């Protein structure tokens, strides 16, 4: 057992000890080559090839003070999996450790993902935030996960819980930041409960970095009349897997899932999403867009389940891609499983190149080739960017769109 901990996760890193669930993980292990779910993202191989967990030195750093995209009183920072900066709670938002979750909270779903089982079996730093009933948190919660691999490789495991109580509202921004060039591995989890008639908007941002390996699981449980919007933006990463699971656990839920990946070099990003319609009269809308160039790989898998009881479900999904080089690889797969009969579902995925006619038109007006491309790329991603309700994030991402044209 300790061999496995040492292999997959050393005591020296963020996770200190295993718990009762570790055995369950050991019975399953990490996904192997035959895994259907990780078919196009051979993360286990890459971890074994790139990571040397023994080399990781235990560090007890303090807040590295990295640049922030915006300011908010609700700012938290993790460094290599350890919480190094947090904020005090108030009447609207309470702050507790993730170990203090009352038994009444039903955060943890029964989910088979190997990395989820691994995360569950490890002690991990993290918080339990709750927005009190009927309140709106005016400024977003902003969590920066900093991985510093400047001196040695780094590993981190985190687990955070967010609960918006009935009729409350808040936004949460999770940003992953990489310092240093050595490889790193993260297993990160976020659990969100959107209470009755509550409204939550969540963001997962990875805008830089080069050698990170990451598997992240986000679980969202929606209650009656609730609204949730997630935006996942990944610009970089040696291998990044975003798992996003939305459970619509009652009627009249509204859920939006939007994603953007813009990759060059040998970056590899995989978005696996699941929307589970379990009750009647809910709506989900998913739109992911990708721009791939050079030797990058993009994977999209979108599962929509419409359970037998979920009559009058409206579920939409699209995944559109631009392939700017013939050495880039795309795997896209919609997976709709519909048991109910009175439903309206649509899905579509496309991949294509930049419109040559449009490029020529813009160049004939004096725009340089790269400028013309950048303009068309911005137009391509605009409908995802327009979903970003926090202006500084939108501006930052927009300013980085054309960077995909130039190898980092």
């Amino acid at each position: 057992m300790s061999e496995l901990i040492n292999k997959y996760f050393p005591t020296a890193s963020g996770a200190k000890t295993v718990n009762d669930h570790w055995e369950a993980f050991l019975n399953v292990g990490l996904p192997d080559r035959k895994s259907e779910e990780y078919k196009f993202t051979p993360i286990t191989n890459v971890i074994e090839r790139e990571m040397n967990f023994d080399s990781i030195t235990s560090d007890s750093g303090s807040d590295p003070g990295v640049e922030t995209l915006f300011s908010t009183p609700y700012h938290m920072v993790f460094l290599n999996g350890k919480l190094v900066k947090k904020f005090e709670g108030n009447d609207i938002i309470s702050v507790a450790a993730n170990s203090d979750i009352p038994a009444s909270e039903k955060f943890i779903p029964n989910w088979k993902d190997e990395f989820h089982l691994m995360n569950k079996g490890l002690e991990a730093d993290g918080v339990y935030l709750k927005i009190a009933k009927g309140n709106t948190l005016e400024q977003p919660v902003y969590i920066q996960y900093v991985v510093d691999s400047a001196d040695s490789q780094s590993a981190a495991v985190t687990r955070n819980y967010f609960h918006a109580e009935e009729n409350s509202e808040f936004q949460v921004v999770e940003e992953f930041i990489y310092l240093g060039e050595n490889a790193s591995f993260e297993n990160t989890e976020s659990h969100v409960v959107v209470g009755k008639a509550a409204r939550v908007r969540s963001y997962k941002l990875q805008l830089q970095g080069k050698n990170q390996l990451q598997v992240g699981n986000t679980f969202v449980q929606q209650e009656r009349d609730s609204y949730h919007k997630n935006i996942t933006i990944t610009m970089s990463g040696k291998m990044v897997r975003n798992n996003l699971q939305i459970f619509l656990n009652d009627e009249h839920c509204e859920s939006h899932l939007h994603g953007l990946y813009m990759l060059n070099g040998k970056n590899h990003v995989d978005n696996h999403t699941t929307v589970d319609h379990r009750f009647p009269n809910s709506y989900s809308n998913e739109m992911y867009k990708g721009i791939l160039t050079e030797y990058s790989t993009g994977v999209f898998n979108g599962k929509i389940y419409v359970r037998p009881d979920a009559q009058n479900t409206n579920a939409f999904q699209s995944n559109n891609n631009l392939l700017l080089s013939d050495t880039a690889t795309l795997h896209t797969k919609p997976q709709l499983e519909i048991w109910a009969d009175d439903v309206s579902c649509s899905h579509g995925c496309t991949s294509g190149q930049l419109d040559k006619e449009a490029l020529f038109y813009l160049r004939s007006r004096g725009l340089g080739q790269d400028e013309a491309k950048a303009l068309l790329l911005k137009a391509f991603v605009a409908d995802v960017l327009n979903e970003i309700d926090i202006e500084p994030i939108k501006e930052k991402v927009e300013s980085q769109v054309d960077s995909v044209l130039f190898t980092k």
Partner: protein
Amino acid sequence: MLKIKDLHASVEDKEILQGVNLEVKPGEVHAIMGPNGSGKSTLASVLAGREEYEVTKGSVEYRGVDLLELAPEERAREGIFLAFQYPVEIPGVSTTNFLRTALNQVREHRGQEPMDAVNFLSFMKEKMKLVDIDQALLSRSLNEGFSGGEKKRNEIFQMAVMEPKLAILDETDSGLDIDALKIVANGVNSLKSPDKATIVVTHYQRLLNYIVPDYVHVIYKGRIVKSGNKDLALELEEKGYDWIKSEVDPVIS
């Protein structure tokens, strides 16, 4: 200003231009006419630098430089402007999105200061009046859902902003009613100056009542088979193209 010599151009191994010769001097207006499919748009595209057309023979000299060596954007910066026969739709990009960048590229090339947003706006407003175009149209996705007339007016508007030395209008008149035609012609005429030249590609004589050409050329089967003054256009209007075809076909086949 422009010297085209024995220009041959192909697309997908099909030779479309088969030896075009044409000289345009500053201040002149040349009309290029000809039946459908004779190569008018191909000539316009080759001059603007569209890459799918391969020049297999001949030369084009523009203001002393080898035009064929220049990328499309370099040609634009040197003062060439093509008003497209079929302006492309670009979802998510509006005219105002790219036009200031485009203009500033040209200005930089000419050694002028870039125009800031405020100055550009008033400059644009002036040009909008010229072609009677609405600002709302300029903020919409380019050509998406534009009527035929709006597309053409937008092309002329852009031309007015870019102030080219050599403007090439490819069938800007097709699909326009008489009022729109006058507006377009008025826009073109107001840009006339002794150091600028215009090539007007058209299928009909109608436009030439408003933009009076110094020369009229007829392209047929990829070469200029007849040149004359504005009377040639009237003659074509009256007699159609068949007499040209019957004159030329025996000679080239």
